[in-house]
C-alpha cells in the first residue's frame, strides 16, 4: 500500500505511450490506411463503452442492456453543442457525457428497483425510446441523420479512452467500488453491512451512462453523420457481447473484448452477411469453453514483472 507507483504501473504506462506513439507516428508519416485508422478509433470508442457497461453489469451486477441509448444521448447532445451552438469540442463532449449521466440517474431511480430480467427489459425499452425520440426530432435531422464536422483525431480518442479507463478503474478499486461489488455478491448482506444499495446501484448506473455519453460524443464528432438507426438495440448487444466475451467484472477483459470484437467485425466488413454468424459462433464456442468469459472476473496483470509494491494486489481481485 505504501508504494503508490510500482513497476507494474510504470510498465503499463510505457505500453500505453508506445501504442499511442506507433499509431500517431504512422498517421504523421501517412502510412496508416484510412480503414485501419477508423478501426483504431472505433476500438477506443468501444473500449469506453464496454468498460463503462461492465461497471454496471459486471461490477455492480445490474443487468442493463440500454447502453446504446446513453451513447445516443451523448452523441446527439455533443453534436447539438458543436453544430447548433458552435461550441468547442471539449465542451461538447462534456455536455454529452453530463446529459447522459443525468439521464442515467433519472432512469436509474425507478428502474433499479427491478431485478434481473425485469431490469434488462426496462433498460432495453429505455434505449429504444431514446432512439425513437431522436428519430422524430426534426431539430436533429430525424431519420436522415445529423451531420457533424469531423474533429476527433486519434490523439483525442486515444487519450479520452485512457482517461476513462483509469477513472473507472480507480472507482472500482476504491471503497465505493467495493460497495458496488458487494451488491453483486450478495445484496442482502451488503444492505445489512451498512451499504446503501440503491445509492450505489444508481451511482454505478450514472457513471456508466456518463462514459457511454462520452463515447457517443466521440463517435458523433468522428463519423461525419449520426443516425438514430446506429443506436438501435443491436448496438447495445454488441457492447454487451464485448463485456461478456471479456468476462463480466473484469476491466481488462472488457478492453480485450472490445478489441477482439471490433477487429473481428472490421475484418469481416467485406462479408457483412457473415459478421453476425461468426459473432454467434464465437460466442457459442466461448460459452462452452470459457463460460465466464476470456478473463472471468480476474484481471490481466503484469504482476510477474513487479517485485515490490505487490501489496496492492489486496485491493485488486
Amino acid at each position, binding site marked *: 500500500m505504501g508504494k503508490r507507483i510500482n513497476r507494474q504501473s510504470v510498465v503499463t504506462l510505457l505500453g500505453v505511450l508506445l501504442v499511442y506513439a506507433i499509431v500517431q507516428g504512422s498517421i504523421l508519416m501517412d502510412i496508416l490506411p484510412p480503414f485501419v485508422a477508423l478501426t483504431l478509433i472505433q476500438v477506443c470508442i468501444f473500449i469506453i463503452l464496454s468498460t463503462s457497461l461492465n461497471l454496471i453489469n459486471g461490477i455492480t451486477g445490474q443487468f442493463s442492456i440500454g447502453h446504446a441509448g446513453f451513447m445516443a444521448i451523448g452523441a446527439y447532445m455533443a453534436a447539438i453543442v458543436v453544430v447548433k451552438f458552435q461550441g468547442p469540442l471539449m465542451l461538447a463532449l462534456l455536455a454529452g457525457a453530463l446529459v447522459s449521466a443525468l439521464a442515467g440517474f433519472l432512469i436509474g431511480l425507478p428502474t433499479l428497483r427491478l431485478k434481473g430480467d425485469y431490469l434488462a427489459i426496462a433498460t432495453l425499452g429505455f434505449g429504444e425510446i431514446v432512439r425513437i425520440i431522436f428519430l422524430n426530432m426534426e431539430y436533429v435531422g430525424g431519420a436522415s441523420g445529423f451531420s457533424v464536422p469531423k474533429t476527433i483525431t486519434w490523439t483525442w480518442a486515444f487519450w479520452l479512452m485512457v482517461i476513462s479507463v483509469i477513472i473507472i478503474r480507480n472507482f472500482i478499486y*476504491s471503497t465505493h467500488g467495493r460497495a458496488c*461489488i458487494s451488491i453483486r*455478491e450478495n445484496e442482502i448482506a451488503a444492505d*445489512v453491512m451498512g*451499504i446503501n444499495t440503491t445509492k450505489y446501484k444508481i451511482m454505478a448506473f450514472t457513471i456508466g451512462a456518463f462514459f457511454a455519453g462520452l463515447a457517443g460524443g466521440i463517435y458523433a464528432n468522428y463519423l461525419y453523420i449520426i443516425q438514430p438507426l446506429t443506436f438501435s438495440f443491436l448496438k447495445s448487444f454488441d457492447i454487451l457481447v464485448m463485456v461478456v466475451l471479456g468476462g463480466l467484472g473484469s476491466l481488462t477483459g472488457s478492453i480485450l473484448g472490445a478489441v477482439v470484437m471490433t477487429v473481428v467485425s472490421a475484418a469481416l466488413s467485406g462479408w457483412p452477411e457473415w459478421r453476425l454468424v461468426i459473432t454467434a459462433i464465437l460466442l457459442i464456442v466461448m460459452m462452452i469453453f470459457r463460460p465466464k468469459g476470456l478473463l472471468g472476473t480476474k484481471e490481466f496483470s503484469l504482476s510477474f514483472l513487479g517485485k515490490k509494491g505487490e501489496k496492492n494486489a*489486496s485491493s485488486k481481485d
Partner: protein
Amino acid sequence: MPLLRIEKLSKSFGGLKAVSNLNIEINEGELIGLIGPNGAGKTTAFNLLTGVYEQTEGKILFQDKDMRGLKPYHVTQRGMARTFQNIRLFSDLSVIDNVKIAYHQRSSYGIFSAFLRLPSYYAGEEEMQRKAMELLKIFNLDHKAEEIAKNLPYGEQRRLEIARALGTEPKLLLLDEPAAGMNPQETHDLMNLIRWIREKFKLTILLIEHDMSLVMGVCERIYVLDYGMIIAQGAPDEIKSNPKVIEAYLGEEVV
C-alpha cells in the same frame, strides 16, 4: 435505560402471525439468548429488528430511538449488526475485502477522491487496510487475508461473518444460530469467542440458537419463543425447569 426495548411487536404475513406481542428488554452489556422450536419466529424477530421486514404493530426502540421504517443499512449505521443463519459472506471476494466492506460506512473519502486518487484516497485506504487487518488478527484470520472467502473451512467462515459484523462497529450484535453446523469442539470455542468479544468490544449480544449447551453456557438471560409468542423468560436454570418450555420442545406430557 435499556439499550433495546421491543414493545408489543407483531408481524403478520397475510393471515399468519409469525410474531405477536413480543416484549423484550436488553440492557447494555447483557448477553441474551432467544430460543424456541423450529418455526417459532426467531429469525422473523431478527429480520424485524434489522429492518429487513417492517413490523405490523409495535415498537422497536434502540437507544431510545424508534427504528420503525428504517432500511437495513440505516439500522446498521445506528449500531446494530447481525450475522445470518445461512452464512452470507461475499463469497467470491477475499477475506479482507469482506471486512473492508463492513468498514465502508465509516470510509473517509468521497468518490471524487477515488476517481482522481487524491491523497485522501490513499489515507482512507491505508486506514481501512490497517483496521481490517487488526480485526482479522483478533479472529486469527490474518494469515488468510488474501484467500477467497468461500474457500475457508466452515468454522472459519462463521468466524469471518462475525468479524465482518464487528467491522461495522456495532453496539448490539445479533447472532443468528452462530453454532449451526459446528461440532462440539467448535461450539465450545465459539462460546469462548462470544464471551471474549463481548468484553473486548464492549458489546451487547442477542443470539438465536438451537444448541442448548451453547445457550445455557453463555447467556445470562433467555427468552423462549413459541408460535410467535414469548412463553418464558429468565435465567438459564429457570428456563431449563420451566414446564412450558419443556412442553414446547418435547410436547405435552401424556397423562
